[in-house]
């Protein structure tokens, strides 16, 4: 059993990697776009789940990071002549990191409901800045970007081209997702879990919980900013939607639908949301209603989300197997 499992896991990983690499050749361009969007929202949702699922911090302000990343990318690309796409994205991620540091240090002392409400307030603040600071953000009109071609050693990537932006997203955000996954296994990752389970005890053990929380807040903010940056790049346009409460609700839905209990839950949720939204919006313009109902059903009857349901099925199968053996 023990020797079999890593081998089958390796197979699964190999097949998944091959499928992802071949996707542009297999999928029609619109499907490819949806997959790209799914990857972008996966990172956004995973970063959110590091706060919610791992640290137990319920934030209603995650869109401020996403939005700052998205707007900063557009602003840097438009305002700095000759800047490369990667540099603009790096700077934009840096900008959301700074926002995380600023907001995070103000939120250090509060927990629970006050924390949730304050994040909501900060999100509204950033939305208001987006609306009012017209010269910088374009206000209601949003910002158009024409992302320049990216010259890599091996060739040229054009972010306006579907397969190119897909590969760029896959490699960069895939790496970021792997990094997040590794992060949960590090000492820092464990201390985040401890934060959720018993913060008092953690303090008695000599940890500085405020710093742990701040680091996590900044880290997840930067990741959300990176996702936002790709969102702008994919659409060649950014609007206030990126920093709106809707965007926060979206990540909440994705994370809860996918399940907060596992690392892959939010990824599942992000893809599920992207595809279901696409499917439902074909059928009716009232798709948010259905999505909302789905959310309520999920929270009431399957609090573990899709990943929880999946896990349940696997467990039942295993049990059936062991029961059948003797």
């Amino acid at each position, binding site marked *: 059993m023990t020797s079999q499992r890593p081998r089958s896991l390796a197979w699964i990983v190999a097949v998944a990697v091959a499928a992802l690499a071949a996707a542009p050749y297999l999928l029609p361009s*619109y499907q490819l776009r949806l997959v790209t969007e799914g990857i972008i929202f996966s990172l956004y949702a995973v970063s959110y789940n590091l706060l919610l699922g791992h640290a137990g911090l319920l934030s209603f302000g995650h869109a401020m990071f996403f939005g700052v990343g998205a707007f900063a990318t557009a602003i840097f690309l438009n305002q700095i002549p000759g800047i490369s796409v990667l540099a603009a994205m790096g700077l934009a991620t840096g900008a959301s990191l700074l926002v995380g540091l600023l907001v995070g240090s103000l939120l250090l002392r509060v927990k629970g409901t006050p924390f949730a409400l304050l994040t909501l307030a900060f999100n509204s603040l950033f939305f208001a800045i987006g609306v009012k600071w017209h010269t910088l953000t374009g206000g209601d009109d949003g910002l158009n970007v024409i992302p320049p071609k990216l010259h890599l050693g091996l060739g040229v990537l054009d972010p306006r081209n579907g397969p190119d932006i897909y590969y760029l997203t896959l490699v960069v955000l895939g790496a970021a997702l792997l990094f997040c996954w590794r992060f949960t296994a590090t000492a820092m990752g464990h201390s985040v879990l401890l934060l959720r389970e018993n913060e008092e005890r953690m303090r008695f053990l000599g940890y500085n919980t405020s710093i742990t929380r701040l680091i996590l807040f900044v880290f997840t903010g930067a990741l959300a900013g990176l996702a936002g940056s790709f969102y702008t790049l994919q659409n060649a346009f950014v609007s206030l*939607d*990126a920093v709106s409460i809707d965007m926060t609700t979206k990540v909440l839905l994705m994370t809860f639908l996918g399940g907060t209990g596992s690392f892959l839950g939010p990824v599942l949720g992000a893809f599920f949301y992207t595809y279901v939204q*696409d*499917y439902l919006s074909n059928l009716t313009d009232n798709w948010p209603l259905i999505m909302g109902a789905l959310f309520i059903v999920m929270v009431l009857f399957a609090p573990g989300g899709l990943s929880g349901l999946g896990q349940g099925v696997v467990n039942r199968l295993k049990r059936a197997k062991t029961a059948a053996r003797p």
Partner: protein
Amino acid sequence: MRKFAIACLTLALGLMLAAGAGAAETIKLAVMEPFSGNFKDIGDRYAEGVQYAAEVLNAKGGINGKKIEVIPVDTEVNPAVATRKATKLILQDNVRHFCGGTGSSVAGAMEALADKHNTLFFTYGMAAASLTGDKCNRNFFRTCANTDMQSYALATWVAEQGFKKVFCIAQDYSFGQEAVAAFTKKLKELNPQAEIVGQVMHPMGTKDFAPYVSQIISSGAEVVFTSNWGNDLTLLLKQAQPMGLKAKFAGYYLNDELMINAVANDQAVIGSVGAEIYMVSIPGQANQEFVEGFKKAKGFYPTWLRGKAYAATMFWAEALKKAGNDKVDDVIKAWEGLTYDGPAGKWTMRACDHQVQQPVWIAEIVAKNPYFSHAFVGPAKMVASDKITTPCEQTGCKGLAK
């Protein structure tokens, strides 16, 4: 689980795609409008205009032998939603022609999208000057007046009437600011004696206009310029008359039948003027024929929005006819410099910024009219296009190679 879900959905979408592919070849024109929410009435009326134009064209055998298929798309006035739906139409259904008229934010997103996928987008209602100014691109055409032109037309009217004291009131966001700035600039130019005796920029969604109305009354203004729309216009007009405001309004959207209906007090609107590129009361045979045909087909009058969208669609069709096909690059080339003589006068698509050069029509709101039982526009008077034009080099549009 994830793979399975994706596989299922891919299959479902694939099937839908296959179902759509069998139909005869048509020219697909997607109408990007709000068909739900607060702005539904605007989107509906625009779409009725486009739809009627398509019916007229199809009755004559279509364009270049192909029928036009109008695809309504609900944007919810949300650029993200509009982008998502339009991208799908482009990538999956191979739609190449788009139009829309509501929301400058949607316009910006559609402009970016049109550029990215080399599709064509024309707007018959999005007025922000920047769309054909510093944001201009070769895939984006505007067949309606921008804020500059509409403000200039009203300034021309105010100057011609010889008003000396003018008050400006507008919503405090980019559109209102642009409108007031352009109006003030042109009025100073045309009549240096005219004085702006007061200016108010109020937040959108204002409920109580009483303080502003008293400000207008005490300023002694003879005429009030406003670019307000929606509820902000309805409430302003509704509250001004009972408070004793004698000055009339010169406004962007006074020729809106739903607004006048909502004010529900004809005395509050009679004597004020509206300015638009299309009004149902434009004199001339071309418009008369259009109005009669529309009334017969639909049972109601093609008021401003419907007429704007109709004429724009006919203009687009002219470009397709001239191009001889519906390939985007050819249509762009054909449309540049093209002139269309339609119900609202002569329109010429300027090549340097893709902003149409056209007259703006001004009409006073009168009590008796053939269209409605309530007050509506009287005969429209033309402000010629050369009086309200902005020279190419002043638009801020760079890079539309001739």
